[in-house]
């Protein structure tokens, strides 16, 4: 008697399980997969993505370089006082651990996390992100020699 009850219970539970999967099997458009290369999810706010420095606003203070725990930021400044400018700013993003300390420390808020998260490249040298181009370097040196501060140049 016990065995028969057991078999009945087994059949009942098995059918319940099958119906649950069948519900999803025949439900059209129930797929929740994001087809990655065709469609991308936006990263959420405050996502610590790949770093970006808006060098036009950067004063070249070098606090980011000092706070970086793994020394992956390279910065070289030119000029004195308020006219100081970065003439070389690079991040070895392959070493960066996205802790965000540099972004917190940046007084000008020009060093930010973007929402980019696809950092794969074919060669290691492509992971050496340089933010100051040659033209910018020339211009910054001229401005620094003239003694124009960063904020006033904008106006």
């Amino acid at each position, binding site marked *: 008697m016990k*065995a028969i009850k057991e*078999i009945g219970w087994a059949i009942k539970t*098995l059918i319940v*399980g*099958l119906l*649950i*999967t*069948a519900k*999803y*099997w*025949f439900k059209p458009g*129930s*797929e*929740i*997969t994001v*087809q990655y290369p065709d469609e991308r999810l936006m990263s959420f706010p405050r996502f610590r993505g790949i770093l970006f420095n808006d060098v036009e606003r950067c004063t070249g203070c070098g606090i980011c370089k000092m706070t970086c725990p793994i020394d992956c930021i390279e910065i070289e400044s030119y000029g004195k006082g308020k006219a100081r400018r970065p003439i070389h700013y690079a991040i070895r993003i392959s070493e960066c651990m996205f802790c965000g300390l540099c972004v917190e420390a940046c007084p000008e808020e020009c060093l930010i996390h973007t929402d980019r998260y696809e950092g794969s490249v074919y060669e290691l040298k492509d992971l050496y992100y340089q933010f100051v181009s040659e033209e910018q370097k020339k211009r910054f040196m001229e401005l620094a020699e003239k003694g124009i501060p960063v904020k006033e140049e904008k106006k």
Partner: protein
Amino acid sequence: MERLIVKLSVKLGFGSPPDWAILLIIGLIAGIILLVFILLYEGLATYIERKVAGDIQVRYGPNRVGPYGILQFVADGLKLFFKEDIIHSQADRLLFRLAPYIVFTGSFVGLAAIPFSVEWYAAKLNVGVLFIVATTSLVVAGLAMAGWAQANKWGLLGGMRSVAQIVSYEVTVGIALLVPIIHIGSLDLQQAVLYQKKGWGILGWNIFHDPFTFIAFFIYFIAALAECNRTPFDLPEGESELVAGYFTEYTGFRFAFFFMAEYGDMFVVSALASCLFLGGWHIPFIEELIKIPVLKNILGSIVLIAKVVVLILIMMWFRWTYPRLRIDQLMALNWKRLIPIGLLMLLCASLWDLVFNGKRIFELLGIIK
């Protein structure tokens, strides 16, 4: 067919061929047709399996190669074909090479006995059921060889498990198959199909013969699942415990052979179920209206394959629904539940045959004549 071969042989200048040559050529042609068919089926079955898995698990499944990813199996086949074939130094080389062929042959040869329609069958065997049961058991030898030959603990455990499982469930399969065979009175599958001609091609099915064949069908189906090493009885290849079980060390095309053997086994087992229980190639309702023999053959095989496909889809549905059994549960289910019930059904079916003179339940109720 024979006349065609004789004519062709005479025309080509070989003279009249001996009987054995005719038999050999017909056998080869049938074999090639079945091989092409089974390879195509296996490719599509892997694709459908992945699609079903995707749908049940709320994702897409293959959708990159070709429209709806339908060419995925071609890509997979090519990949397996060009992969490096590794036989590691500790392996027993002879057994390692032999095992995939035995497994594949065991699952493929069973197709020979299956009648696809009135005239379309590879071999007219009067012991077809016995032949299929025997060849599906041959798979065990291959699996044990594969498990032993690769000198790998996972492989060995998988091989041992599959032997224990298939040998035990073979008994259940045999008993469950005897139930309809008692009513049919023949081991010939063609006879079995012809026996189910009554009742518009549906009510005459053996599964509706009496309550005992109805239960026997489910016993057979459960045991057949275990024989194909399908979930929930896929302990020999349980990836969470045994990596891949008996084919752990196999790569490339040898691995593909095991894979194809599994799907081939599914086809044979489902085809046997449809022939013995579900009316085989009988076309429901309109069989009497079709007069052209060729059309009848084509429609008959389509009906048989449709039944097989439905059973295979149910197997896939099971796979993505149920968790795996434990090894002691597996054995307990077989020896303590399925075999006693099977024997009881066998006894009851024999008594039914004796008491009601082999009449169907619908005949007794007066629904069909």
